[in-house]
C-alpha cells in the first residue's frame, strides 16, 4: 500500500497560484503553508476535504484522480456510480439512463454505490440495536471526517461505526459477482466515480480494509462529460437499477442518519460545522444524541468538489428523483446472502498523530514553551504574510525547525 504522506490528494498548478493565502487560511488541519509565494501542502496532515480546491480563486488547486483511460487496462470494467452522480443531470427522471450511459461509454457492468449504502443502513440498524459501539455512534462514510477523527479526535475512536464504506461494499460485491460469472480475476477492473478527493485517497490507500477493493477512482466531472453526449442518444434503456429511495437519499446530508435510525440523531455538514460537533463531543456535550452523521461537504456528497452541478440544484434533483424510486425494505442483508461480518471493518484504521510535536513529551514541551515565547513577540493578527495560517502556527514552525531559525515576521 502507498504510504499516506506520499499520496498527493491535491496538486498545485504553480503557474496559476498567486500565493494569496486563501487556501492556507481555511485549511481545517493547517496543512498548507505559502513558501516562495506558492501554496504547498503537507500531505501527512491533509484529510482530502477539498476545501482548498473549492475556495481557490485562481483554480490553482487540482484534486487528484485517475484518468478515464485507466479503465482500458482491464478487459472487464465495472463502474461504481455514487448516488450524488444522479443529481448532476438536468431533467433526469430515471436513473437507468445514467447506468445505461455508463455501459455505453465503455463499462461492462455497473454496481450502484447507493445499493452499498442501503446495505450499510441495514447493518447500522443491527449494530445500534446490539449497542456494542459507544454512543453516540459516529458515522464513518465520509472519509474526510474519518481521517479527521483518526488524526485529531482520538477520544472518539470507540464511537466510530465500524462498517465498511458503501463504496467498499459495492466494490466487494461487484467483484465477487463478476468472478462468479466466470470472469478471470485479473481481467476485472473496478472503478469508483468519486465526488471528492477524500474518496480518491481513502479508496486508493484503503481505510478499514486489508487492501483496496477498487482498481481506480475517476472523477464525477470527467465521467459526466463523457455521459452527457451518449445519454441523449440511447437506443434502449434497460432497467438495471436496484436502488431504492433510501440509497439515493445518501447523496444528501441526513440521508444516512434517516435511513438507519429512528432515535435521536444529528446530521452536520460542512467542515466547520463538523469541527464544532467533534469538539463538542470531546467535551461531553450531545449526551442525549444516539447517532451522528457528519459530512465534510456542505449539503453532503452533492457538495463534493469533483461534481459539476451546484450542490443546491443537485439536492433539489435528488429530492425529485426520490419520488420516482421504490421504497425498498431497509433490511437487505438476507438478499445478498452474507453475514454481518462481511460488512464490517476488516481492520481498525490507523490512528495518526498529526498534532504531536515530538514523541518525547519533554522535547515537545520545550518546543511549545519556545513557541509561546516567540508568539508573545508577534503582532498576533494572523495576517498570513509570513506564509503560515496564524501567528501561533508561525511560532510553532520556528520552534520546531520547520522553517529556518532566522525567519522573521514581515510585520515587526
Amino acid at each position, binding site marked *: 500500500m502507498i504510504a499516506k504522506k506520499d499520496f498527493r490528494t491535491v496538486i498545485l498548478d504553480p503557474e496559476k497560484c498567486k500565493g494569496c493565502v486563501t487556501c492556507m487560511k481555511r485549511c481545517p488541519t493547517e496543512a498548507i503553508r505559502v513558501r516562495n509565494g506558492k501554496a504547498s501542502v503537507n500531505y501527512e496532515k491533509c484529510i482530502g476535504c477539498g476545501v482548498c480546491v473549492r475556495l481557490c480563486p485562481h483554480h490553482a488547486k487540482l484534486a487528484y484522480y485517475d484518468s478515464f483511460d485507466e479503465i482500458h487496462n482491464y478487459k472487464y470494467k465495472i463502474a461504481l456510480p455514487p448516488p450524488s452522480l444522479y443529481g448532476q443531470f438536468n431533467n433526469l427522471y430515471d436513473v437507468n439512463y445514467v447506468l445505461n450511459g455508463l455501459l455505453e461509454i465503455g463499462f461492462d457492468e455497473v454496481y450502484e454505490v447507493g445499493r452499498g449504502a442501503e446495505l450499510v443502513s441495514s447493518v447500522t440498524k443491527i449494530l445500534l440495536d446490539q449497542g456494542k459501539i459507544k454512543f453516540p455512534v459516529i458515522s464513518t462514510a465520509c472519509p474526510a471526517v474519518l481521517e479527521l477523527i483518526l488524526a485529531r479526535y482520538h*477520544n472518539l475512536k470507540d464511537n466510530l461505526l465500524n462498517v465498511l464504506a458503501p463504496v467498499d461494499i459495492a466494490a466487494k460485491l461487484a467483484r465477487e459477482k463478476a468472478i462468479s460469472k466466470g470472469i478471470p480475476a485479473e481481467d476485472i477492473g473496478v472503478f469508483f466515480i468519486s465526488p471528492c478527493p477524500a474518496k480518491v485517497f481513502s479508496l486508493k490507500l484503503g481505510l478499514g480494509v486489508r487492501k483496496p477493493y477498487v482498481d481506480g477512482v475517476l472523477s464525477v466531472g470527467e465521467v459526466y462529460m463523457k455521459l452527457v453526449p451518449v445519454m441523449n442518444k440511447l437506443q434502449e434503456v434497460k432497467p438495471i437499477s436496484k436502488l431504492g429511495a433510501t440509497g439515493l437519499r445518501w447523496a444528501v446530508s441526513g440521508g444516512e442518519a434517516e435511513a438507519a435510525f429512528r432515535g435521536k440523531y444529528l446530521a452536520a455538514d460542512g467542515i466547520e460545522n463538523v469541527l464544532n460537533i467533534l469538539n463538542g463531543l*470531546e*467535551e461531553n*456535550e450531545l449526551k442525549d444524541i444516539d447517532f451522528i452523521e457528519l459530512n465534510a461537504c456542505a449539503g453532503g456528497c452533492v457538495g463534493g468538489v469533483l461534481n459539476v452541478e451546484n450542490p443546491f440544484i443537485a439536492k433539489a434533483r435528488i429530492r425529485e428523483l426520490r419520488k420516482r424510486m421504490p421504497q425498498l425494505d431497509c433490511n437487505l442483508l438476507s438478499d445478498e446472502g452474507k453475514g454481518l461480518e462481511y460488512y464490517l471493518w476488516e481492520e481498525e484504521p490507523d490512528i495518526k498523530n498529526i*498534532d*504531536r510535536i515530538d514523541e518525547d513529551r*519533554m522535547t515537545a*514541551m520545550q518546543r511549545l514553551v519556545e513557541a509561546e515565547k516567540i508568539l508573545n513577540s508577534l503582532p498576533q493578527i494572523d495576517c498570513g504574510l509570513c506564509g503560515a495560517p496564524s501567528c501561533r502556527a508561525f511560532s510553532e514552525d520556528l520552534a520546531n525547525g520547520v522553517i529556518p531559525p532566522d525567519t522573521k515576521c514581515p510585520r515587526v
Partner: protein
Amino acid sequence: MEQCVHLEFEVAGNNFAQAGLASDQVKSTLKKLGIDPQDIRRVAIAMYEGEINMVIHANGGRAYVDIFVDKICINLIDQGKGIENIELAMTPGYSTAPDDVRALGFGAGMGLPNMKKYTDVFNIESEVGKGTKVEMEIHFR
C-alpha cells in the same frame, strides 16, 4: 524552573456561542504534547463545565491554565454572585439554572460533580456577592 505553558482566557458572560473556545485551545495544546486521549477527555470535560458555569451563573470570568509535562492546573476565577452553599451546589442534580438556560440543554446539575469526578485535585471557594474560584488539577498518565 520547570517548563510550563501558560494560557489565559477571558470568558464572556451569557455568551453561549463563545463558550468552549478556551477548552478547545487547551485541548489543542495537549494534543501537541501527545497527552493520552483519556486525559485530554477529562480536561476537556472539566474545563468546559467550568467555563460554562462562569458563562451561565457568574456573568463571565477568567481562566488561567498552566500545562506541565505531567499535569495541568486550571484556575477559574469570577466576580459573579457566588455560591451560598457549596455542599448543596456540589450535589448531583442541584441546579439554579433558569428555564431559558435549561431550554439550551444545561441545568442538569451535573457540572460541578463531573468536574470533581474527572479531576485529581478539585477545590472550590466562593463568597456570596464577591465571586467564585475553582482550582483543578489533572495528572497525566
